[in-house]
């Protein structure tokens, strides 16, 4: 193992490592889904709610299938968490796989919430329970999605610090 150069002090080395960590954190701050993704999810959810509320049986069946297919087509790149903007591509090993898993779990949770809210609204005599539930969940998407990403970034920042 080569000896470190004698003119590098502990303080200088520590300061250099702090610089490295600071720059790593700047890249970690870029881990996110693109800004359009949450709007796409929220508007798609409302569209499915409209289909379920006002469409016939085919709309009830086809609207979630179409939305799911469209989501699958668009989500792969978006959910990697590596392309928030066009300014950089975060390395795969730095971004990790948590973004995709977290968003998929979030979406599954949203389906459960949608069903629950719609059933409660229907039992309460609401005129448009499916539409009501989809709007509630769309608002949850817009408010909760960015918070979920912020929590993931904090988790990634704590992991593997220099």
């Amino acid at each position, binding site marked *: 193992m080569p000896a470190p150069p004698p003119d590098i002090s502990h303080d200088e080395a520590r300061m250099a490592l702090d610089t*490295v960590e600071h720059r790593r954190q700047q890249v970690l701050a870029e881990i996110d889904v693109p800004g359009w993704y949450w709007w796409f999810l929220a508007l798609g959810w409302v569209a499915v709610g409209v289909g379920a509320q006002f469409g016939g049986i085919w709309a009830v069946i086809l609207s979630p299938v179409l939305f799911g297919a469209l989501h699958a087509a668009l989500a792969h790149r978006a959910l990697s968490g590596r392309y928030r903007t*066009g300014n*950089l591509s975060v390395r795969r090993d730095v971004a990790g796989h948590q973004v995709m898993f977290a968003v998929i779990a979030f979406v599954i949770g949203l389906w459960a919430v949608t069903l629950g809210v719609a059933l409660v609204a229907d039992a309460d005599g609401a005129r448009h329970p499916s539409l009501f539930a989809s709007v509630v969940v769309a608002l949850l998407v817009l408010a909760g999605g960015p918070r979920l990403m912020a929590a993931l970034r904090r988790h990634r920042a704590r992991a593997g610090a*220099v």
Partner: protein
Amino acid sequence: MTAPRFDELIHPSTRLSIVALLASADWIEFGYVRDQLGLSDSALSKQFSTLEEAGYLTLERRVSDRRRRVQVRLTPEGRAAFDGHVAALRAVVAMAESETTTL
């Protein structure tokens, strides 16, 4: 585990910042690096030239939406040099801390 290898070319603060940013990314836009480091275009270009001549990074010029964009990425040699340099810095810190402990 990477072998420690102090790198004089990377060590200056500005170049260390550039390489550390690039080490966490596949590629980064020139403008993003410039904004994060608060450097002028010419100052940053000079640093990039030095690192490019050493074979540590590549610059890829492309036209997107009628705008000229420059993507910067570390080469495998640049990444190895950075990893070795960070390992050397850690070794210095560890050595100093172990000396403090034994005193």
